C-alpha cells in the first residue's frame, strides 16, 4: 500500500480550514501590530518623572526619612548615617565614677564602640578585623619586606577609613545632623523648623514630585481659622488646571461644602496660588479635596 503525497490545496475539503487558518493568522498579526504600537504611530517618548526641588520654600530636611512624623528611616539611611560617636561619650563619663579599674574599662569600651560601629556602618566592617591582625602580626614576622608591605597596606586602609569618615561627616552635615537629629538640625541644614519629609511621606533625596509639591503649596496658601466655622465635616473638591508655564487656567468646584465661608477660603487659596513659582513644562490637571480632617481644636 502506498501513501499518497500530501497535497492539501488539491483537496476540496481542506480549503475552508486553510482559509480560516489564514484569517486567524492575519488577525493575530494585526492585533500584535496594534498593541505593539505599529499602527498607532511612533512610540511615545517615555515621560520621565519631573522632580521639583524647592530650596527656599519647602525644603526637605531629611528626605531619606520620607515621613513627615520623623518615623523610622529606610534601610538605606543607615548606610549613609555617620558612625555614631555616642558610645564614646557615656564611657568617658563612666570612667571617673569608677576609678578603681580605670585601665581595663576604656579598653573594653573602645572594643564595644568598634563593634557597634561595625554593626551600624557596613563601611567600617573590614576595619576591625584589619586593625587587630596588624597589631598582632607585626612582631610575628621576620621578613622585612613583607612587614613593609603590610605596613603600607595598613596605612592605605587607614587613609581610606579616614576619607570614608570625612565623607560620612560631610553627608551628616548636609543632611542637617543625620536621621537621629533631623528635627533639631544644627545650623548647617535648613534649620530646626524645616519639615521632615513631605505630606504624603514620599520624599526622596531628589526632592518631591510636582503633585506632592502642589499639594503642599495649596495647603500653605489655604488659610481658615477654626473660629470661622462651626462644623468640622466640611469638604469641597475643586478641579484645577495649570498651563505649562505655571499659570492657573481654570478652576471649578466639582463638589462644594455648602458653607460659604469654607468655600470662599478655598477660592482664596486657589487664587493665591494662581501662579506657580516654576514652569511645569506641561499642563497639569488636578482634583483637590479640601477638608478639615486634621484641623486641631
Amino acid at each position, binding site marked *: 500500500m502506498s501513501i499518497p503525497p500530501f497535497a492539501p490545496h488539491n483537496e476540496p475539503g481542506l480549503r475552508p480550514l486553510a482559509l480560516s487558518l489564514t484569517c486567524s493568522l492575519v488577525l493575530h498579526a494585526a492585533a500584535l501590530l*496594534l498593541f505593539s504600537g505599529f499602527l498607532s504611530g511612533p512610540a511615545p517618548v517615555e515621560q520621565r518623572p519631573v522632580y521639583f526641588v524647592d530650596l527656599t520654600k519647602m525644603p526637605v530636611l531629611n528626605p531619606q526619612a520620607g515621613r513627615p512624623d520623623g518615623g523610622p528611616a529606610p534601610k538605606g539611611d543607615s548606610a549613609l548615617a555617620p558612625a555614631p560617636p555616642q558610645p564614646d561619650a557615656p564611657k568617658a563619663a563612666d570612667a571617673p565614677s569608677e576609678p578603681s579599674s580605670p585601665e581595663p574599662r576604656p579598653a573594653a569600651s573602645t572594643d564595644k564602640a568598634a563593634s557597634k560601629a561595625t554593626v551600624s556602618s557596613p563601611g567600617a566592617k573590614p576595619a576591625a578585623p584589619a586593625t587587630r591582625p596588624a597589631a598582632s602580626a607585626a612582631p610575628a614576622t621576620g621578613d622585612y619586606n613583607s612587614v613593609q608591605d603590610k605596613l603600607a597596606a595598613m596605612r592605605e586602609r587607614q587613609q581610606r577609613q579616614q576619607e570614608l569618615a570625612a565623607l560620612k561627616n560631610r553627608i551628616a552635615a548636609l543632611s542637617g545632623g543625620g536621621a537621629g537629629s533631623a528635627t533639631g538640625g544644627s545650623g548647617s541644614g535648613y534649620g530646626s523648623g524645616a519639615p521632615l519629609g513631605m505630606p504624603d511621606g514620599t520624599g526622596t533625596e531628589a526632592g518631591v514630585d510636582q503633585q506632592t509639591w502642589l499639594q503642599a503649596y495649596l495647603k500653605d496658601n489655604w*488659610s481658615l481659622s477654626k473660629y470661622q466655622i462651626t462644623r468640622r465635616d466640611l469638604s469641597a473638591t475643586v478641579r484645577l488646571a495649570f498651563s505649562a508655564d505655571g499659570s492657573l487656567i481654570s478652576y471649578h468646584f466639582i463638589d462644594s461644602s455648602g458653607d460659604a465661608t469654607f468655600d470662599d477660603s478655598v477660592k482664596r487659596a486657589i487664587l493665591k496660588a494662581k501662579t506657580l513659582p516654576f514652569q511645569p513644562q506641561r499642563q497639569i490637571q488636578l482634583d483637590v479635596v479640601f*477638608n*478639615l480632617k486634621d484641623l486641631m481644636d
Partner: protein
Amino acid sequence: MCRLVTLLFLFACLTATTVVAQVEIRAPGQQTINVANAELLPLAGPAQPGIAKELHKVLAVDLDMAGLFRQLDPAAFLDDARRPGLTSTQVDFSQWALLGAEILVKGGYHAQGDHIRVEFRLYDVVHRRLLTGRSYVGTRNDLRLMAHKFADQILLNVTGKEGPFSSRIAYIDNRTGHKELYLMDTDGANVLRLTDHRSIVLNPDFSPSGREIVFTSYRRGNPDLFRKILSTGQEAALSSRNGLNVSARFRPDGRELALTQSASGNPELTLLGTDGSQRRRLTNHWGIDVDPSWSPAGDRLAFVSDRQGNPHIFIMDVLSGQIRRLTGSGKYNATPAWSPDGERIAFTRLEGGNFDIYSIRPDGTDERRLTFGAGNKEHPRWSPDSRFLVYSSDQAGGKGIYVMRADGSGIRRISSGGQCQHPAWSRQR
C-alpha cells in the same frame, strides 16, 4: 478586517481617557487670616495723629481678641498705606498681596471741632474688592465705639456672624467701699457707675434690648430685685418679697424673668412678669434651686439644685416641668450660663479647692474644662455671639473681670482695680 481594526482603535482610544490625579488637603496651612490694619488718614484738613492712633489701637485689640487674625506689622507697610483710598480702584492691592495680607482695613477721618466723621473700609486683597464700608459720625468721645462697631463688621464679613465688641459688660465693683453696679466697654474702657445704693448690689442681667438691667440690692435690708433703665437712669423695685429675690434672668423674648425667691421658706425658681407680677412657681422641691439660665428659645432653663445631694446643673422643660440632670461629674457644679447660640452651657465646678469654668453640650455630652491654674474663676456669662465668655477671677490677686474665647484661649483681664465680680454681657448696645 478594516472594521475590526477601527473597532479596536476606538476601544483603545476610549480606555486611554485622561485620569485626573486627586490630592487631599486635610487642614488649612494657616489657621489665621492675615490682616493689614492701616492707620486712618485725614480726608481733609491737617492730620490729627491722636484720632488715627486711638481708632487703630481699639481695632487692633478687638481683632486680636477675635483670635482668627494675624495682624501684619505696620512697619512693613508700603506707600499705599500712606495714600487714602476709599474705593477699590484707589488701592494698590499688589502691595498688600506682596506682604501676604488677605484683608485690608483702610480709611480716613474728617474732624471739625468736636464733630468727627470716620470712614472705614474693609478690602479683600485676594479678590481685589471692597467687602464693606462704614461711615460713622459722632464726637471725639465716640471714637472707641466707632472702632468697636467696625470690628463687629469685620467679623461679620469674615465669619458671617457679627462681633460683640460694641456691646457692654455690667459688673459689680466695690471701689467706693460698697458693692455697686458698673458698666464698661468689652475692652474695659469707659467705666460708668450705675448705682449709688451704698449697700450690696449683686447679679445683674441685661434685657434682650439692652436698654434695661435688673439686679439684686440690699438697699432696703432685704435682697430685693431692681430694674433700671439705662438711658434715663430710672430705677424701681421689681420684686421685694420676703427672703431672697436673686439671680434674675430675662427670658430671651424679654417678657418674663426667671429668678430665685424664698418667700415660701425654701429657695425656688419663679417666673416673674417684667412689671413685677408673680406668674408661676417653676420648682417645688425641698432642695435649693438657684441660678436659672434660659435656653435661646426660652423653652428650657438650666439651674443649680442640690436635690440629689451635691449641687449639680439640671435642665427643666418650662412647659412640662420635666427635669433632668445635666452634669454627672464633680461634686459642686454651679452658675450655669446657656450660650445664645444654644450650643453649650458654661458652668463652674469646685475641684481641688478652686472654682474653674467648664462647658458642656445641653445633652450632657462633650464636657470641656476651659480654665486652669490657681485662683477661682466664677460667674461665667456668654457674649451675645457665643464667641467669648466673661467671668470674674482672683487668679492675679484681687477679683477682676476677665474675658476669654469660648474654647478657653485668649484670656485677658479687662477690669482694673477694685474687687470686681458678677459680670453680665449685654446683647445689644
